[in-house]
């Protein structure tokens, strides 16, 4: 598609997201904030799945670890400083991703899928079985972090509007960061690894290190999402690390179309949108969700991002085999 049209479309979406909280209710502002956080989560996974060719089925681990850190690094009866606790939480997730990456990146293909899953379960049980973070009941974040820096408080998370715009800004930042990263020589190597790892090795690239770096960055960004999720909802449970969460975020990436950052964002919107819609209809909404997943896999390879191209292709070919 024409890049100018795409860019205009993205800017229009951004503008409507910025205008949204002034028209929608506070409830919907929180829903959209949640979607934006999940969009960050989905983009971080897309770096692995879509760009590096690493299908991680345990990405919720890094999301959940930083969410727990948001609570555990905060004092009990006061708010933590955002500028300390946010980077610290992301760092813990990054370290976890680095260490787990040392193990899982030794494996390939289907082993990689299963092993990432197993390691995320390990993280899940650490929080589920031990008293570290309140056990299976989870733990509450009583005070949202305080954004004071050098005596100046630019915004307060107790205002939904401030929280919303902070999350929106983060989402845009992550989008820009990943776009630049993927354009850099480092990013080109990652895409090269996805296409043909052996060839990259023959060219002299130590692909393991590149994959480990990507895995760590993706873990840190998933941590960013998990941290904001904890701040938004005020509690953390082991479910944040569960394999259902890993499955959900993988689904967002696929729905949007792998290897497309804007697609990952769109995937997050569609996923939560469907979730809200279906759960409004029936308490058995997962039945419909499951049905949608099955249909998407069977009939919509390439996800949403491929949809405009497929529709155009359908008309160009005169509807023969769109």
């Amino acid at each position: 598609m024409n890049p100018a049209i795409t860019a205009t479309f993205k800017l229009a979406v951004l503008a409507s997201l910025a205008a949204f909280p002034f028209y929608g209710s506070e409830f919907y502002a929180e829903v959209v904030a949640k979607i934006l956080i999940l969009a960050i989560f989905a983009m971080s996974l897309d770096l692995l799945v879509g760009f590096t060719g690493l299908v991680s089925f345990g990405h919720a681990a890094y999301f959940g670890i930083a969410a727990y850190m948001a609570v555990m690094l905060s004092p009990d009866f006061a708010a933590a400083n955002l500028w300390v606790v946010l980077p610290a939480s992301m760092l813990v997730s990054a370290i976890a991703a680095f260490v787990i990456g040392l193990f899982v990146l030794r494996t390939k293909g289907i082993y990689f899928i299963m092993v990432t899953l197993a390691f995320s379960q390990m993280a899940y049980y650490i929080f589920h079985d031990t008293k570290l973070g309140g056990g299976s009941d989870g733990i509450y974040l009583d005070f949202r972090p305080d954004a004071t820096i050098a005596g100046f408080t630019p915004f307060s998370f107790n205002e939904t509007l401030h929280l919303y715009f902070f999350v929106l800004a983060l989402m845009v930042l992550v989008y820009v960061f990943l776009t630049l990263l993927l354009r850099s020589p480092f990013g080109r190597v990652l895409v090269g690894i996805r296409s043909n790892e052996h060839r990259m090795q023959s060219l002299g690239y130590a692909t393991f290190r590149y994959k480990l770096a990507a895995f760590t960055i993706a873990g840190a960004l998933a941590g960013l999402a998990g941290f904001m999720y904890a701040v938004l909802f005020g509690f953390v449970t082991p479910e944040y690390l569960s394999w259902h969460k890993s499955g959900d975020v993988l689904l967002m990436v696929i729905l949007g179309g792998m290897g497309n950052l804007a697609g990952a964002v769109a995937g997050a919107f569609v996923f939560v949108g469907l979730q809200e819609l279906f759960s409004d209809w029936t308490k058995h909404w997962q039945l419909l969700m499951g049905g949608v997943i099955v249909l998407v896999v069977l009939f919509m390879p390439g996800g949403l991002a491929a949809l405009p191209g497929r529709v155009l292709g359908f008309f160009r070919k005169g509807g023969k085999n769109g």
Partner: protein
Amino acid sequence: MDFTTFLIQLLNALQYGLLLFLVAIGLTLVFGIMGIINLAHGSFYMLGAYMAFVLTGMTGNLMLTIAIGIPLAFVFGALLEALLFSHLYKRDHLEQVLLTYGLILIFEELRSLAVGDDVHGVPVPEMFAMSIPLSDTLSYPVYRLVISGVCLLLAVGLYFLIQRTRLGMVIRAGSHDRDMVQALGIDINRLYRTVFAIGVVLAALAGMLAAPISSVYPGMGGSVLIISFVIVVIGGIGSVWGALVAALVIGFADTFGKVFVPEMAGLMVYLVMALVLLWRPEGIFRKG
């Protein structure tokens, strides 16, 4: 720990490991032969357990239930393969993961619609509802021994099926080189359908056998699925004997983990996996 307690834990570990083996067979065969990663495999275990609950309520007898359940599970497996899984063979692993993830949601909700979300119990069959006294205070339930026995018999039967029959020969050949098997004029679709259905039957049977000792509850398929994955990974994908060894290792790690380090019990299984993978990234029994 005195000897009697040790013996009880040993038998428990054996029984748990063997039960996991039944579930893992289907997973490892379906991957080894058809190249499919099936997340919904744990759901077959769950469906088996619920089938035990519903049918035992009607027939009043777990034995009869199992006799009815096995053909039902076989037909269900064959239908599922024909309608859905046969479309997945040429897709990549990611799409398989997603489709089968979607299936889990569907199966769980159908279960919820059909029998609700309560936890149920299934009575131990009367002829096995007794215990063998081991000391003055400790005894061991006969039913658990029966489970181990049945699983062992099945393992032996499977050995003969795979090593000594024509079907087994084709299965082995299929896991080695699919295209060649097809080129030799063997109906690969029928082979796939049979293997898939056998996997479903074994998982459902494991669920039916386990129902009286573990109770029947929502989400019971999920935990079994993940543990089975670990077993398949440790044993080496596609290797039935690897799965047997790995299932026993996991059974012991989990059972004795709960005895010695109860606060870390959930972790034990995954620690074992991490160690095995450090040693052999492709599992213990991976064929070259």
